C-alpha cells in the first residue's frame, strides 16, 4: 500500500491519547510540552469516541489513555467505554493521584484492560519531592493496591535519573510487593521539561553503567515472575533508539486539543504542519498530513544514515533530539557514534548541578 507520494504506508498499532494536560503532579521530566494546552481547548467525549473508532478502522490495536493525568477528565469512564467499544485494547496511564477508587472500579467495569502507574522513588520523601506533591507516594501505593484488588493487570513505570538511579532494586521490590506483573524502567529522555532540568537530572556515567548491570541481574532473578522492560539512557549510548519504532510507522499521538503527532515531542520541531482530528479523519491524517510524511521511510535521510546498514533498524534515531541538539531535524541523531556531533553528548552529560528542579506547572 502506498500513499500518493509513493511512500509505503504502514498500519499503526498504538494510539497515545493525551486526554488532558492537567495534572496534580509537577515532575521535572514531564513529557508534556512546555506550552501546555488549556482545558477549554480539550476534545469532547463525542470526538474522542469518533477518533477511537477511526483508529480501530486504521488498524490500531491498543489505545493508551494518558495525559497529564487522565483522571482529571470527568468523562474518563465514558471515554474508556468508547475505546473498549471501538474496539481497542484499553490501557490507562495514570499518576495514581487524582483518580478515585470509585472511578477505577467503574473503569474496570466498562472494559479497561490494563493500568500503568508511575512511581518516582522507593523512598516516600524523595518520591514526593520529585513529583512536587506531598503525599503522592502514599496515594500511588493505595491506588496500585486497588488495581490489583480489582484483578486488573498492573505495570509500574519508574523514570530513572540522578536522584533515584541508585535505588532501582528497591523500586523493583516495591513493584513486586504491589503485585505488578510488569515493570517499565525508563531513563529520562531529554526533551521539553526534562531538557530544562537536564543538569539536575543527568546521572553520572558510572551510575548508568551500574544501573544497566542491576537491571540485567533483576531480570535474571525475577525471570518468570515479572516482566522488566527497560529504555536505555541515550546520552551514554553508541546507537540511537529507534524512536517510536520509526516516524509514522507504528504509532500516533493525539493531543488534548486534537492535533495528531507522530510522537509526543514532535511539536518541538519547527515548521512541521500538524493536522487536527477536528478537521480531518484519522485516516486522512495518517496518510496525508505533512508532519507524518516529513520523515517517513528513508528518502529524507542524509549521510551517514542513508547508506547505513542500520537505517531500517533505528531510522537514524530521534528527529526531535536531532533538532534539539543540532538545529537540523534531518541530521543523524547525535546519540549515534557515527554522527559527526556525537562528542557533544558526553560534554552535555558532564554538565551536572544539584540545582532545584523547574517543576512542570
Amino acid at each position, binding site marked *: 500500500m502506498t500513499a500518493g507520494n509513493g511512500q509505503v504506508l504502514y*498500519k499503526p*498499532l*498504538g494510539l497515545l491519547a493525551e486526554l488532558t494536560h492537567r495534572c496534580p503532579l509537577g515532575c521535572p521530566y514531564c513529557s508534556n510540552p512546555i506550552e501546555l494546552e488549556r482545558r477549554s481547548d480539550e476534545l469532547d467525549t463525542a470526538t474522542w469516541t469518533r477518533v477511537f473508532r477511526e483508529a480501530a*478502522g*486504521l*488498524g490500531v*490495536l*491498543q489505545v*493508551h489513555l494518558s495525559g497529564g493525568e487522565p483522571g482529571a477528565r470527568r468523562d474518563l469512564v465514558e471515554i474508556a467505554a468508547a475505546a473498549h467499544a471501538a*474496539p481497542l*485494547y484499553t*490501557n490507562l496511564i495514570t499518576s495514581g493521584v487524582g483518580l478515585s477508587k470509585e472511578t477505577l472500579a467503574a473503569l474496570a467495569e466498562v472494559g479497561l*484492560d*490494563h493500568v*500503568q502507574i508511575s512511581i518516582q522513588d522507593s523512598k516516600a520523601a524523595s518520591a514526593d519531592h520529585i513529583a512536587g506533591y506531598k503525599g503522592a507516594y502514599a496515594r500511588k501505593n493505595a491506588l496500585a493496591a486497588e488495581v490489583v484488588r480489582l*484483578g*486488573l*493487570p498492573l*505495570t509500574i513505570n519508574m523514570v530513572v535519573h540522578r536522584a533515584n538511579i541508585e535505588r532501582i532494586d528497591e523500586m523493583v521490590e516495591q513493584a513486586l510487593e504491589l503485585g505488578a*506483573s*510488569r515493570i*517499565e524502567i525508563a531513563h529520562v529522555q531529554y526533551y521539553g521539561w526534562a531538557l530544562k532540568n537536564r543538569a539536575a537530572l543527568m546521572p553520572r556515567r558510572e551510575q548508568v553503567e551500574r544501573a544497566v548491570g542491576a537491571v540485567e541481574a533483576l531480570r535474571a532473578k525475577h*525471570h*518468570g515472575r*515479572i*516482566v522488566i*522492560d527497560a529504555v536505555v539512557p541515550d546520552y551514554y549510548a553508541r546507537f540511537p533508539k529507534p524512536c517510536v519504532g520509526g516516524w509514522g510507522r507504528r504509532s500516533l499521538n493525539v493531543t488534548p486539543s486534537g492535533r495528531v503527532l507522530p510522537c509526543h515531542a514532535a511539536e518541538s520541531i519547527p515548521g512541521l504542519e500538524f493536522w487536527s482530528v477536528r478537521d480531518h479523519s484519522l485516516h486522512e491524517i495518517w496518510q496525508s498530513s505533512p508532519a507524518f510524511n516529513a520523515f517517513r521511510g528513508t528518502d529524507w535521510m542524509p549521510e551517514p544514515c542513508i547508506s547505513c546498514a542500520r537505517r531500517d533498524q533505528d531510522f537514524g534515531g530521534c528527529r526531535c533530539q536531532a533538532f534539539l541538539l543540532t538545529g537540523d531535524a534531518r541530521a543523524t541523531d547525535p546519540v549515534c557514534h557515527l554522527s559527526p556531533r556525537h562528542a557533544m553528548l558526553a560534554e552535555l552529560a558532564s554538565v551536572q548541578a544539584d540545582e532545584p528542579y523547574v517543576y512542570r506547572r
Partner: protein
Amino acid sequence: MNTVSDDSVPRLPRGVRLVDSAAQGGMVLLAPERVFKPDPIAIEILKRCTGAATVAAIADELAAAYSAPRERVLGDVKTLLGSLADKQLLEL
C-alpha cells in the same frame, strides 16, 4: 522458568486477549503495552487456552487434528506454554 505439567489448565489472564485483526492480517495477541503476532501453531494452541482443557487434552486434540505424534506435540505445547507463562501471557 514456569513448569508445565500434563494436568495444568492454561488460560489467558485478564489483560491478555487473542483477537482477529483484519487490518493487521490475522490473529494477534494483545497484552499490557505489547502486541505479539503468534505463528499458526501458536494460534491453535492459544485458542485452546480457555481454562477448560488440560495440557494433555490440548495435546490430544492437536495430535489428532494434525495426525502428528502425540508425545512430540505434548513437548512442543509445554515449551510454548512455559515461555508464554514466563512473559506473563498465560496462567497455569
